[in-house]
């Protein structure tokens, strides 16, 4: 557990000093929101409101791809990845620290994206902010668990940046289905839907346990 906390602290501190990943993700997320406006020129009012859960999760997933990829590509410099592999104890704890750091950074950008989305498309997300944060956190936990595992593999292949979304997106379907369904019900009824939350918990637990156990074979010296 101490290894996980150390890796989390290291990643957050590195990011605090450089701020490159957060800035890149934030700018990208804002651009995606702007692109939605042009992609849906008639998309004002009711049309945007009915498509908002899907659109916002598309922005979240694409933004997460950037963050996850960078999470391990920065470890390639000076062969820092080998140093991580030498951490004492199971390598699953390194995974947990990395996934937690990704969760924190992606979550921060998601909060900003949701605020921008609500603002420019005139959606009242503030009244369900806490519930929306809970569903987003559950969805992001799924993205970050399997995403961290896949990023650790993709970064050490040729065309890693291209391979990353090809490997990751098919595995994210259960997360996207649950998260979009949950967000949709929340925006319609202002209540957290039990079915979607239950699904997201099952998917998160499956991905977390699998990734924790498999990371031993992914991280090598």
């Amino acid at each position, binding site marked *: 557990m101490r290894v996980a906390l150390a890796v989390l602290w290291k990643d957050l501190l590195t990011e605090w000093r450089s701020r490159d990943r957060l800035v890149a993700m934030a700018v990208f997320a804002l651009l995606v929101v702007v692109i939605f406006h042009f992609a849906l020129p008639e998309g004002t009012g009711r049309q945007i409101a009915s498509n908002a859960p899907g659109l916002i999760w598309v922005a979240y997933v694409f933004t997460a791809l950037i963050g996850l990829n960078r999470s391990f590509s920065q470890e390639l410099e000076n062969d820092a990845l080998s140093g991580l592999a030498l951490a004492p104890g199971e390598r699953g704890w390194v995974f947990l620290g990395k996934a937690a750091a990704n969760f924190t950074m992606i979550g921060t950008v998601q909060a900003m994206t949701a605020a921008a989305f609500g603002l420019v498309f005139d959606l009242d997300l503030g009244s369900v902010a806490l519930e929306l944060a809970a569903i987003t956190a559950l969805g992001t936990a799924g993205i970050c668990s*399997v995403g961290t*595992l*896949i990023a650790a*593999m*993709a970064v*050490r*292949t*040729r*065309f*890693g940046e291209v*391979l990353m979304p*090809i*490997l990751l*997106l*098919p*595995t994210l*379907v*259960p997360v996207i*289905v*649950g998260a979009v*369904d949950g967000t949709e019900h929340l925006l319609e009824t202002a209540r957290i839907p039990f*079915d*979607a939350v239950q*699904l997201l918990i*099952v*998917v998160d637990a*499956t991905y977390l346990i*699998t990734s924790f156990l*498999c990371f031993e*074979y*992914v991280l*090598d010296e």
Partner: protein
Amino acid sequence: MNEISDRDLELSFADKLDRAARPLGWLLAVLAIVYAWTVAMAPIDSIQGPIQKILYVHPPLAYGAYLGFVVTAFGGMMYLWKDQENFDRLAIAGAEVGLLFCTLMMVTGPIWARGTWGHWWSWDPRLTVTLLLWFIYLAYLLLRAFGDAGPRTARFGAVYGIVGVLLIPLNYYVIEIFGSRSMHPENLERGSLGDGMGLPFLLGNLTLGVAFVWLLVRRWQVENLRAIAARWGRPEEDLQ
């Protein structure tokens, strides 16, 4: 000395696979002729017409596709556990043969769908799950192709194969609960096939089942020979 005995061991395993594949090949040839004959002689469906005969190909292809993906995950898990390259080669063979069956299923399905449902594609749960699996195993093969030749890529492949097979029940559950209504029949119950349709359907399953095993064994053998050639040079002379 050890180098030579390792090579002999690998060659002897490739030879065993070859000896297993030969009778399977003959069996497949005989079955394929009988199967083609029974399909040709099977009655034509009064509502769907000749297009219904895709039934004798499509479900058996689906079983082969799913089986290939299970073989990939099994090979990957065994490789991680036992650290024997042969299991990794089995996983590659499973993924390639599974992907071939899956592709053929994705080709025959829309042709049948167009004839019976009136459109090429529907977001039916089973179709969607299969499409996602097709993408996952395509990604698996890309991961193998873009990685370095060696144990690291084999481990990556094993991990991704395990994640991929986990998605079969997960995606199915998700899409069944949250997705659109299924257009596929729940199952083929006893007596649901018309007179004269049972035998070609049964033979279709048998023939494509044997074809799956034959292709898997041959592909596994090729992967073994490739590894031997990469490590010790071409082995044809030894096999003759």
